[in-house]
Each structure stands twice: as C-alpha cells, then as structure tokens.
C-alpha cells in the first residue's frame, strides 16, 4: 500500500507546471479566449507536443512516453491550474490512449503527439477544439472519422476557448478495436484532474487577491467570513484530490472498481471546483465580475468541464447503481 504520486508523476507535472507558468500566463489565455480558441495558443500546443506531454500516454515506441494515467492526471491538474486554453483533457487522456490501444489504425498517432494533427473527441456528439481538428472520435464506443466524413455545427460555449461544435458523421469511419477502459471512465477521470487543477488555480489567485485587497482599513482576507469560505474551498479540493488519483490509478490497473472510482472522482472534483469558483468570485467582488480580470477564464472553464464528461449528478446516479441503491 502506497497512496501518493510516484516520482515520475511528480517530475513530469512539475516540469509542465513550470513550463506553463512561463508560457501560459493569463494574458495568453485571455488572447486565446478573444480568438475563440484559435491562434494564440498554437505555440503552446506545439511545445507541449515537443515536450512529450501530448503523447505521454502513448507507448514509447509510438512517439509517446508510456507514462501512467496517474502521471497524466497530475499533468492535467497543472494544465487546469494554468487554465491552458487547449483541449488537453481530450487530447492527452482520450485521443492518444484510445488510438494507441487500438493500434493506431490510421497511422496518425505520432503526428497527434507532436500537434501536427489534431483529433477532436465527441463522446456525446459534441467536441471541443473542433474547428482545428483533422480527425474526430465520436460516440461512447468511439468511431474515428476524417474531417471530411463529418458535418460540424458550431456551438457557442460560455468559454470561448472551447471551440465547440456538434459532430455529425456522414461516412463509415473506423471502429476502434481493443481500446480498453471506456470513454466515460477516461473522460471522467481526466476531466476530474483538470477540474481539481482549475479549483487550485482559482484558490491560489483568490488567496493572493484577498491578502492584497484592502477594505475597511485591512486586507479582506483577514475577515473571518472570507477566511472560512476559502478554508471550505480548500477542504473540498483537498478531499477531491485523492479520488482523482485513485480513479487514474484504477485506469492504470484496470481495477474492477473503475466505474465507481471514475464517477467518484468526477463528482467530487466537479462539486469542489464549482464551489471554489463561487467562493473565488464572491471574494473578488466586482473586480472578479468583469472580463478585465483573468478570473473569469477559470470560472468559465470550470463551468464547462463540470458539465462535460457527465455532471456530478449523473455520476452520483452511476455510483448509486454500482452500490445497488
């Protein structure tokens, strides 16, 4: 028994964190937001490809690093913390491992890992990062389509970096074989990790803000109402973290408890991140209620990811079924 992130997970996530601190400041996220998820984040995507991050779950032979889902979850948490304006949840934790375990039937895996090619993922028929993708993985038992085999209809997400569209297949596509654990579990675990990071990012920003912001002659972070609300956010996030790592580990070990573990992670992380978003906005006051301050980028990403890959309530229903309730 050892329940802690192993060294490889700590190393790769620390490397990603320090890269994002430098290369993905809030200004870049805002620029990507303004550009509808296009353009400004292109260099970021390419660099993450070169660092081996996009392909970290592909086998070492296939342009990947053969790392664990636990390591990927730790990386996604850092991506969330920085609100990196790319569909990393889907690329790292769904597209790459699903293609890899299906034997890369169209031979695009290495290019995907380098961001020379993008694969958008639409478990329920709606894909983020749609307009830049050359390939689409559609459905809970995903089928792979080329861009010219699908019709896209743009959707406006509250988070404009999402670049969202409904995907309607028009060709036969390629059914992925031998893909291991399902889309739902992978998506839930990965989105949970990203949400955990988003929550941590919002809490960090808010703590810094309330230490600095003065009202009534003292920092608002010295008021007990503010302190306790942020302590509650911390509590929710710290208790959501172990389920996130456990879900990733259940994917790595093909645990029979995987469905339950994945749903636990997503429900806890969604609730923790959305509660933190509320607390963060309230503590920022009117300052956070503008698109001039970066907080809104985190809020909107949080709301989107909480709604995607199954809402907290949907996952609670799944757990109830698993518990025979």
């Amino acid at each position: 028994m050892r329940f802690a992130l192993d060294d490889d997970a700590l190393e790769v996530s620390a490397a990603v964190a320090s890269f994002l601190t430098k290369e993905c400041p809030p200004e870049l996220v805002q620029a990507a937001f303004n550009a509808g998820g296009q353009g400004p984040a292109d260099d970021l995507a390419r660099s993450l490809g070169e660092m081996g991050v996009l392909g970290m779950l592909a086998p070492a032979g296939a342009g990947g690093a053969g790392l664990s889902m636990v390591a990927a979850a730790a990386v996604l948490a850092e991506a969330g913390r920085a609100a990196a304006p790319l569909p990393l949840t889907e690329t790292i934790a769904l597209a790459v491992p699903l293609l890899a375990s299906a034997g890369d039937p169209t031979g695009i895996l290495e290019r995907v890992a380098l961001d020379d090619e993008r694969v958008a993922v639409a478990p329920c028929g709606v894909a983020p990062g749609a307009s830049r993708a050359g390939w689409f993985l559609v459905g809970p038992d995903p089928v792979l389509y080329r861009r010219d085999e699908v019709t896209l209809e743009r959707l406006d997400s509250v988070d404009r970096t999402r670049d969202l569209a409904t995907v309607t297949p028009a060709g036969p596509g390629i059914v992925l074989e031998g893909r291991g654990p399902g889309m739902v579990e992978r998506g839930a675990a990965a989105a949970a990790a990203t949400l955990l990071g988003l929550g941590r990012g919002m809490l960090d920003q808010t703590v810094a803000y309330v230490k600095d912001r003065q009202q009534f002659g003292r920092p608002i972070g010295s008021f007990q109402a503010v302190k306790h609300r942020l302590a509650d956010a911390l509590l929710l996030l710290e208790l959501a973290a172990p389920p996130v790592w456990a879900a990733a580990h259940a994917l790595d070990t093909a645990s029979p408890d995987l469905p339950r573990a994945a749903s636990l992670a997503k429900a806890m992380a969604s609730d923790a991140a959305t509660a933190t978003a509320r607390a963060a906005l309230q503590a920022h006051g009117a300052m956070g209620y503008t698109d001039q301050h970066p907080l809104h980028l985190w809020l909107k990403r949080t709301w989107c990811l909480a709604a995607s890959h199954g809402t907290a309530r949907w996952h609670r229903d799944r757990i109830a079924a698993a518990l025979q309730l």
Partner: protein
Amino acid sequence: MDLTWSEEEDAFRGEARAWLEANVPDPPLPSGDTREGFAAHLEWERRLFAGGWAAVSWPQRYGGRDATLWEWLIFEEEYYRARAPQRVTQNGIFLLAPSVFEFGTPEQQDRILPRIAAAEDLWCQGWSEPGAGSDLAGITSRATRCEGGWRLDGQKLWTTRGAFCTHLFGLFRSDPAAERHRGLTYFLVPLDAEGVRVRGFGRLDGDEGFAEVFFDDVFVPDDAVLGDVDQGWSVAMATTGSERGLTLRSPGRFSAVVERLCRLYRASPAGAARRERVVQGWMDAEAYRLFTLQTVTSIVEGRPPGAESSLNKLWWSEMDVRLHETALDLLGDAAELDGEWMRGFEFALAGPIYAGTNEIQRNIAAERLLGLPRS
C-alpha cells in the same frame, strides 16, 4: 389579514396585462448591455413611457400614474410574466429618483424626474471606486468649491451601462478633512461635461455593461448638488428605506424564473432525481412573495423597513443563484452553452456582490437586527 385583491386591483392587472401582451417585443430584444441592444431598449422605454407604464408608482405630473404600492407589485408580476425587456432606466428610477423625491428641490424634481420617466436622460451610478467597493465610505474622488459651483476629480468604477448613459449621480468627497461616511456630497453630472471620460468594459458575460468614469477638473454648478453639501451619505441611503427604492426587489422576477424552471423540469428526460431542488426553488420564491406582501403591508401602514432590507437582499440574491444553478443542472452537458440560462446564471452571480456584498448584509443583520457586537 386579507390575501385577496380588490376589484380595482384586478382591473389594474387586466389593463397592464393587455398592454404588455400587445406591446412586448417578440422576439426578445438583444442584451441591453451592448450598444445596439441599449438602443433597442431605449425605444422600448419610450414606448413604456408613452403607455404610462414607465414608473407606475410615481405621481402623474412626473410621468407616473399614481399607482399604489400594491399596484406596483401587480405591474411587476405582469411585467416579468410577459417576459418584457430588462429596464435599462432602472438606476435612474430605483437608485436616483428616491433621493430626488426625498431631498431634491422642487426645481430639481421638475427638471430631473420627468426626463427619467421619459428615458430622455439616462442615469448611471457613480458610487464605487477602485478602492471603495464593499467599503463605500472609502471614496476618494473629490469635489472642490469654486466660483458658482464645484470642480470634480477622481475615478468611478463598475458603473453599470456607464458607456451608454447621459448622466451620472455619485458621491464625491467635499470635505477632505472628514472621514468615512462624513464629508461626502451627492452630485448630478452630465457625462458630456468637459473633463469627463468614460471607458466601457466587459462584465463577466462579456457584454460592455460596465464602465469606468474619469473626472478631470470637471465643473458642475451649485444646482448639481442633491441635498445638503457634506450630507451625501444620507441622501444616497434614501434608496434603502424608501418604498420606491431597491428594498422591494420584485417577487415577480423570481416567480417568472421559477415558472420557466418548472417547464424546463417537465421537459427534462432524466429529471426525477432533481425534482426536489425545483420544488425548493418554487418554495423559496413563494416565501419571498409572501415576505414582500408583509413588507408592503408594513410600508403602507407607515412602518418603513430598516435593516430588515438586508434579509430581503440576502434572500433574493442567493435564491436567484440557486434557481439558475438548478436549471443548469437540469440542462446537463448543454449547461455550458452561452444561452439564456447561462446568461441568467452569470447575471444572478452579481446579486450577492453588488449593492452591499452579502457579507456586509450579514454583518448588518447580525449587528442591527440581532444586536450582536461589532467585530
């Protein structure tokens, strides 16, 4: 105790409903917090005024129809029920006008009020500043006496729809030696005055609904002062106790949201587990409606609300967030779309922040209603 409406009140409701049915624009107008949407809303405001519905509870001579507070409640219920447009004149009607009624000279009342009702002058508020949000008494924008009037300097922030308005009312520090709530004066400033610069910026939802307003040696004459010099705080606070002020946040607004929420629930395939939250939404709104009837009874009988209005604000603002959270929950993965419910949610999130954050309101409730000691 009597929970029935009189014949006259029923007739008033009928008249309001008929007018709204005939006049409410369909499809709905674009957001009033964008430049084009604001123009469309202005047209609507002028149509409301022409119909005599712009400020129903005001005296006729100022553009109202002398409606009772009960009739005002009925009108609001019908207004939200009809899904009529948001009121881009509301800062003038609900924030400025109560102070003009209470503290304005007859000349000021005659000059200002009819133009508010007619949507000829469009007022925005100038209270908050970069360093004065929750702590409104931290205002540092200043007013300096000069020949025939005053010179204003400083900066106001989070001015709702400031970029589209024609006038600003706001507090400025007229006595630099006085601290906190003292030494502030309430000024009325045309935004086309020399030295005023307005920069619009986006709210959470991206609409340009906010502005910052800079004052650089702006001259205003003596009659731009509302109430007494250095007494601006009491003048501004008139909106709190007044029956025309913000205290009575219309219950109709929330009942209309609940009605839409119930429809959404009934249409929602996987809704059964969520029923309880929808029911609680209805309960919260119904309790608020009854609470408001109680408040209006008190006002009508001559007992204006004091610190109780803190409870009012806490309830409606947190209820509004919950109602929208419930709707987003029902929407499932469609919740993230930039649609009506998400817009409504973003709007609701402002409620616990503006007009005194809910932290401040809880302080007020604890100290003034329960008598607990200050921290």
